[in-house]
């Protein structure tokens, strides 16, 4: 029973990170109908930047803030420079461009920072929490991870719902042609979407790297799990992405805990295959308002 609780709690903590990656993919998907294969690589790079800043200044939070800002800037830059030319073109063009970006960013990280594994600090202690004398299998940093992702998701949801920019983002996601006819500068809206996605990715990199180490490919598997979470949620739904991340995190934690941790990646693929086969619109797809 205690084991089950431990697996569940640590699954929620990892799931929060998958949720952040999933949310960033959904933000981009909704606006541009592009799956950004470089999302994980960009997050890896901003985490290296955080590491440099933390070493330079001695402050974890300075590195944290700079990485988030860098994610924002990289996301916007990626949209303006390499994505803009393939928007509205056949989907394969965008796939090739974002895979190219992935290879470029990981290559650059290798050249600049080298290929060795580096440890990345956590914001809070990673010593396990206990309830009475029983270890819970999670730390304060895990609690922080979940709270940070939920706060980011809530801030995004509120921004979408209550701000003018949020309304423009949603209108563009639902019908870019109509948005343009109403005077919405869709190009800027898409840049904003990519910037926010970059920020979420950077957050995911900061939260996961204390447990995975940091190296040029360190975010690859996190990207795959984030994508799986987004698919579970339906790719189009921010709330679904968060739920999908948490569900996937817990399921993978059970798979790793009860069946053996070497099976975790395989379990991720099995879940992805099952969802795509039986619920390709996501677990939460309800009545469709619009058939495209």
């Amino acid at each position, binding site marked *: 029973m205690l084991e089950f609780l431990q697996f569940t709690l640590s699954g929620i903590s990892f799931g929060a990170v998958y949720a952040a990656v999933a949310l960033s993919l959904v933000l981009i998907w909704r606006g541009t109908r592009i799956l950004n294969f470089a999302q994980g690589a960009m997050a890896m790079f901003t985490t290296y930047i955080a590491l440099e800043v933390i070493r330079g200044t001695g402050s974890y939070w300075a590195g944290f803030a700079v990485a988030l800002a860098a994610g924002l800037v990289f996301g916007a830059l990626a949209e303006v420079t390499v994505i803009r030319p393939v928007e509205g073109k056949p989907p394969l063009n965008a796939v090739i461009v974002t895979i190219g970006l992935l290879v470029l960013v990981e290559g650059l990280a290798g050249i600049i920072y080298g290929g060795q594994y580096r440890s990345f600090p956590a914001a809070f202690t990673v010593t396990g929490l206990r309830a009475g004398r029983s270890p819970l299998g999670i730390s304060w940093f895990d609690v922080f991870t979940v709270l940070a992702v939920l706060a980011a998701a809530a801030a995004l949801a509120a921004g979408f719902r209550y701000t003018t920019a949020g*309304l423009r983002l949603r209108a563009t996601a639902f019908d870019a042609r109509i948005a343009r006819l109403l005077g*919405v500068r869709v190009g800027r809206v898409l840049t904003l979407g990519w910037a926010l996605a970059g920020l979420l990715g950077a957050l995911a990199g900061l939260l996961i790297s204390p447990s995975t180490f940091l190296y040029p490919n360190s975010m690859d598997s996190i990207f795959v799990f984030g994508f799986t979470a987004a698919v579970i949620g339906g790719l189009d739904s921010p709330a679904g992405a968060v739920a999908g991340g948490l569900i996937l995190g817990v399921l993978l934690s059970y798979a790793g805990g009860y069946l053996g941790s070497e099976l975790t990646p395989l379990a991720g693929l099995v879940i992805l295959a099952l969802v795509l086969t039986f619920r390709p619109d996501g677990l939460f797809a309800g009545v469709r308002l619009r058939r495209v």
Partner: protein
Amino acid sequence: MSSAALSVGSLAAGYGGVLALKDVSLTAAPATITVVLGANGAGKTTLLRTVSGLVRPRAGRVLVDDTDLTGRPPEDVARAGVAHVPEGHGVIAELTVEENLRLGAMSWRRDGRNTGRAARAAAVAAACDRFPNLGRRRHKPAAVLSGGERQLLAIARALLARPRVLLLDEPSLGLAPRAVRQVMELISQLRAESGLTILLVEQNARGALAIADQGVVLSLGTVVATADAGTLAADVALRHHYLGY
């Protein structure tokens, strides 16, 4: 020339290798309704799309109040004062009625009038008062509206943009007869009360000519007749040949 609110000169446009518009010229005076008639494939929808920037012209000019908008992207054309209600109304079903309306009032051009947040909220509230069927459901998704109500919402949203020129693409398509009358009445009221210049594409030629000042008949991408609405309605040969009634 300077008296025209909308002036289209020798416009050509198309999709891929096909020219849907070959050579279309028309001028519309301020506060008038111009109805564009013609069979399917005559180029009516392409004409509106080219004016609003959704389709790039291959040749010709589009002027609104003497501002050259030829080939500008749709968001710029909208901000210059051209509101386009496309075929099938273009209401965003997933957004609430109020959000649809707010989108309309989001991109006002600076023309000396108050463009602050409060002014925009007041304009949305006024639209909800004017169209009580919309106001009652302002917080519901637009998906719950009937076809006629969606058309009204699309027109109300276009009006909230404070346009100088309003382009309407088949606003009566698929509506029940009562809703058609309501929409047509609204269109003729708009000209009277706000000095709006309206370019109206309609299948329902008889109903449209009844409220229009001027009619333009298109056939295969060219203008085959331009006259005041009464003359066109009385021209039996033209009616038989191009309008089918």
